[in-house]
């Protein structure tokens, strides 16, 4: 019998600018990621991202992978996706 992997979802709303970094980091730090989990960063409502936001995502990707789990980014808006493309982050992350 196989069980579905457990999914943890983090929702990010509004602009991920310098002011929002602390709140987003706290949401991420609250996650209890275990081996085999799928962590979904739901960015459907995220209207903007700055380079510090990208750095938080990168650190999260490394941490989640190290714990034997998988990070998936969901619902990037087109202008935000362009920032991922410009910086090569589109090649690093898994998208849904």
């Amino acid at each position, binding site marked *: 019998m196989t069980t579905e992997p457990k999914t943890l979802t983090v929702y990010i709303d509004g*602009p991920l*600018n*310098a*002011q929002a970094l602390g709140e987003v980091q706290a949401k991420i730090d609250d996650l209890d990621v275990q081996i085999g989990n799928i962590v979904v960063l739901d960015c459907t409502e995220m209207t*903007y991202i*700055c*380079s*510090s936001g*990208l*750095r938080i995502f*990168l650190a999260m*990707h*490394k941490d989640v*992978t190290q714990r034997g789990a998988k990070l998936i980014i969901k619902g990037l808006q087109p*202008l935000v996706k362009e*920032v991922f493309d*410009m*910086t*090569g982050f589109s*090649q*690093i992350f898994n998208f849904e």
Partner: protein
Amino acid sequence: MEKKLTIENKLEQLTLLSGYVEELCEELNLGPELVFNFNLVLEEAMTNVVMYAYPEGETHTIELTATLQGKELVFVLKDTGTPFDPTQVPDVDTTLSAEEREIGGLGIFLIKQIMDRVEYQYIDNHNVLTMAKNI
């Protein structure tokens, strides 16, 4: 056309930026993509100054001016902090894997990607960063 924004070197003052960009782009009739990109470019440039240009605890002003020169929209950012030329920061290698990627240099890289011309000068004890884009 000239539009100015003066802020103190405090992170919370950067919240003034989005209103400034919104108004500027409305005056010039520019679309959401440029609003987004100018917000990003200016936040990156000004965050660097706020975070690194001055010793902690000191209050200074940072001045941003936008002028339209023909088809080129020119942003000039001036501060009196430690001389620093962000254009000399090596480009990030966008082909590296997550493990190999380094943490720094992303902000200035985005500025250079988005703008058509980025120049630095040190004039009369001021860092002067010029960031221009054809619109």
